[in-house]
């Protein structure tokens, strides 16, 4: 194996992610290749430095505020869901009643009835179109997914 085959394996070697066979191949190669041996040493030194780095832990007060904020969002999520369902039901029912009463009322001008029906149909078409587009994007966009497994 040449250097180009071995170098990509160096990260896996340092992280203990190689098979025994791959490990043996890396060790055999670096034993006879000074350039790859130097690469291995330098990457190991950097990895050791990175391994000593860790994030600052927030104070208890910061953690309490952080959790309270997450908790509020969890509660708000349920609130928004109920609000959205309720608003959709009320809006749909109200629109249905409005259209029905307007269309059946003989005193309302025909042009206004046509306008109301067109408005209702247009809203439905737009809603379905946007919904379909959103679903298509969600299926094809791997970054929109929150959980993959």
């Amino acid at each position, binding site marked *: 194996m040449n250097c180009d085959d071995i*170098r*990509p*394996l*160096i*990260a*896996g070697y340092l*992280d203990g*992610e190689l098979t025994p066979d791959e490990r043996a191949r890396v060790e055999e190669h670096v034993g006879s290749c000074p350039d790859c041996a130097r690469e291995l040493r*330098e*990457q190991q030194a*950097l*990895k050791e*430095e*990175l*391994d*000593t*780095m*860790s*994030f*600052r*832990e*927030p104070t208890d007060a910061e*953690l309490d505020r*952080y*959790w309270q*904020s*997450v*908790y509020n*969002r*969890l509660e708000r*999520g349920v609130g928004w869901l109920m609000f959205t369902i309720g608003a959709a039901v009320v809006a749909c029912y109200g629109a249905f009643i409005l259209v029905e009463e307007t269309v059946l009322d003989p005193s309302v001008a025909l042009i206004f009835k046509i306008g109301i029906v067109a408005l209702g149909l247009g809203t439905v078409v737009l809603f379905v179109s946007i919904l379909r587009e959103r679903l298509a994007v969600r299926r094809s966009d*791997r*970054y*929109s*997914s*929150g*959980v*993959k*497994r």
Partner: protein
Amino acid sequence: VIDEVPEQADGAQPEAEVMRRCRDGDRDAFGQIVKRYAGRAIGAALLLLGDHDEAQDASQEAFVRAWRNIRKFDPSRRFFPWYGTILRNICISRLRRRSGKRTVELLDGASGTPPEAGPVLLAERNERKDRIWRAIRQLSETQREVIVMNHFQEMSYREMAEALDIPLGTVMSRLHNARAALRKRLANEAHEL
């Protein structure tokens, strides 16, 4: 491959037990998990996003999303790598929205000026560590995310491959290239001093 759930040395409940309670809908248990990982979550998001307020917001959004999907979580595995996948997706979406470009262009490092380092959220700080932090922030998004996943989110190669939807070999070569780029940046900076 590191897959075992860590034991708690500080007398706290083992993570698997807390996660089982979370799956049963126990919000207090989830609060324990949030507090246990908040620091690491904010730090990882900060390295990816560069802005502290946005990092805090993204990490909280990721916890909310994790809670909503908690039933999909396998309690025999570790929480933080699973959460890290959610957090990474949220950060990438925010970066994409921020740039207004296609994700592929952004991830290929085609952006113009190097990102600002932002505040440094390290437990222990010295000149060398601050320099490494800045150098990580200056890597391309593709390189930065593998460094963050591997070193700060404790993800195994298998977990990274699943999160990034790429083969294991590609994870290895990306990580190798990222470390090489990081080393080069540090060497250049040292040379300039």
